[in-house]
């Protein structure tokens, strides 16, 4: 794999979003960081991402699931990770049904990075085969 894996990261908190982007870039990923659901949907319409990281609660009661739905409309099997401070059972159930990983904030960075690496590797293998 010559190209850097591309990751879309969405969070309505600018500081949080910034640190996520920095960490991802430091780890050698091509990170696209956006604050809103709208922007994120635009991004997924514009290009294919290898992975989507998305906060559950976004602006104006929008959720990360909207972003995932939009991305999967274009690339059905794109791996998604839901980042959330808390999750209702319904949200967890839905994530489970749709094959979306859930990470609870505050996120342990080691776990954060290992989850991303594992998902990307698995997905790449899946695609290659």
């Amino acid at each position, binding site marked *: 794999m010559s190209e850097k894996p591309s990751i879309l990261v969405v969070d309505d*908190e600018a*500081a*949080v979003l*910034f*640190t*996520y982007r*920095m*960490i991802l870039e*430091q780890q050698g990923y091509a990170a696209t960081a956006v604050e809103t659901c709208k922007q994120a949907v635009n991004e997924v319409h514009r290009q294919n991402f290898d992975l989507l990281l998305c906060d559950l609660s976004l602006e104006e009661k929008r959720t990360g699931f909207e972003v995932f739905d939009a991305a999967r409309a274009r690339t059905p099997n794109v791996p998604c990770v839901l980042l959330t*401070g*808390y999750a*209702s*059972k319904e949200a*967890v159930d839905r994530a*489970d049904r749709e094959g979306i990983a859930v990470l*609870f*904030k*505050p*996120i342990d*960075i080691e776990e954060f990075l290992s989850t991303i690496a594992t998902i990307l590797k698995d997905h790449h293998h899946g695609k290659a085969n």
Partner: protein
Amino acid sequence: MATPEMRAHTPRLVEKVERRLIPERGRAAFRLLSAERSDEIFPILMEEIVALGFPRALVVTLDLESGEIRPVAGINCTPNYQQKFKTALWQGENQVVAVLRTLKPAIIPKPGAHGRSLYCHPLLYKNRTACWEAERGNRFCLAVQNFHKPGGLEIGAQVCRSCEMRAYAGAVIVEMPANSSERQRGDLGSVIDVANGYLSRLFKVDHYYNRMRDSDVTIAQMETLMQSMADPVILTDSQHRVIAQNRAAERFFKLPEKEVTEGAARAVELNNLLFSAALSSMAVSGSSDASRDLTLVDIIEGEEVLFEAVTAPSFGRDGMRSGLVTVMRDVTDLRRADQEFRTSIERLRDAQEVVRQDRDLMHMVIENVGDPIIVADGSARAVLLDSLAQELFGRVHETTNGPIRLDSVDPRIVSNQVKLDSYLQAFTFSFSARQDGTLRLYSTESKSEVDYDTRSGKIYDKRGQVSYTITVLRDLSAFRKLEQLKMERRLIEMEKFAATGRLAGTIAHEVNNPMEAIKNAIFLIQGVMKPEAQPIYEILKNETDRVARIVRQMLGLYRHSEQVSTIDVNSVVEDTLVLFARQLERSGIRLEKDLANVPPVVGSADQFRQVVSNLVINAKDSMVSPSEEVDSHAHGRAAMLKIRTRHLPAADGIHGWVRLTVADTGSGIPPEIIKTVFEPFVSTKGEKGTGLGLWIVKGIIENHSGKMRVRSKLGKGTVFKIDLPVVR
């Protein structure tokens, strides 16, 4: 009467052989007839035998008791000679014995060298006619039996079956002259037979004489016996005429010898009349033995005496009823004692009944203390009110026993009294033993009308009539209020907890994002730090991690949907385990689920989810070393998390518990902190733990009226048991 002269002359009167024989026997018969006693017979016989021309003779008799044969009389015999004939019945070779056995006369040839032959003739008690005892009885007479067909001389056979008299037996032994003729021997036999006949008759007379003497003795004994009896004994004939009575009876039935008063005479007459009337009626009643109470007047004392007359029929020897024997027992004292005894028993029963009623009364009163109680009598009038009842119906005026007076000028209290009265009336005169109902009464305490639950019971006297009624009132409003308060308090507690949780959650949520940024930033500056700043960086990182953990824990308290509903514990467990399945798998922890069919419990599903997840996280942490590897080497066995649910039914079949057990094979809780493990900020995880998890779990469980226990062994593992009440 018979004289030697007569003997001398008589033979010459008869010429012919036949004729001569008769006078010879006749003469002897006359002489024998003169014997008045049986013991005179043998001497006369001896003389007559000598008179017939025989030199000497003797008589031996058999002792029927010993079987010995002894000489008893003799003529021209020396005592020595007589003693030669002493023998016994069992000496069968003796020829005299042989004669006695055969009962046939015999001639014994010359016994000695110089002796002569002997004629031996048997003697045996016999008669042609039976005695009167045999006539009346079984018609067996030994004498007659011996006369017609002598049954041998067995000792046992010689006792009369009718009169029990013993026969006599013996033999006459006569020495024969050398020239004795056949006729001489014939005469001898005849004379001996005649003598035996007389002897038998005299023997019988002796027997009667003895019997009479015995009878006299018996009669005297009977008389003594009868007189010595203190109870009157009367013998009556078949017409109920008095034949004999003892002195005790004479006291009632016979006029005294002297000083006869008119009263005494009347008393005797009356007693006799009453007695014969009683006998007649007993005879009519038919039974052979009867008893009857009879009141007679004591002639001397003039007192009335109550007798129990017991009669038994008397029978004659012929088996016919000859009359009645009446024995009268003085039962005056006995009856009086009996009467007194009955009265005492009756009184005792009454006393027992009173005690029982009192006990029942007190029992019911004590049982129901704390509620207004009204005790009323069988006429529905209140007799006892406890202090609570007095508040409702007015103060009791201290009066004597009996119905009490309730006084009040308060119209509302008077209205209560009227309601109580009609309630008591209705219940007391109803047929039911118990009654439950309601009474709407004015309560002075709450200053309002209150519905009272009434419960009434009856206490019956021994005739089955109502002696008391007990009515207990229960202020349902107070009871309901308490229940409501309890419920509200619980809801408030839950709400408080939820509010606390919400607040904590909200704070945590607000802190969470800045936290996330700080944490990420710390991570990012990791590589660009001056080496001397490294310790500061470590502090920054560790303390931030700690805040992150606290935030994570507090977030668990925050839930949007705080709905209380019925929850299936099993599905909560399943839902929660889904979230942890991957983590547990990655940590190499085997999960064992054992979920039984359990009834639903009431509570918040989200809170239960938090309970389960906290316990699962604790279990996982206790089994995993800081290096994220299963700490299986430490205790040498597989890390395992066991989650089990069970239904523990209660005895009443309604309530019961759902038990959730979470067990791990982890490091365990040190004994020194096991008691404080449910308090806030107590942790076994050091820096890694917040010390809030179990405190929250315990809070949730207790809010749901549940119970929680922990058991742990260091290095072996920990078991949490949670019991949640089942509500139906």
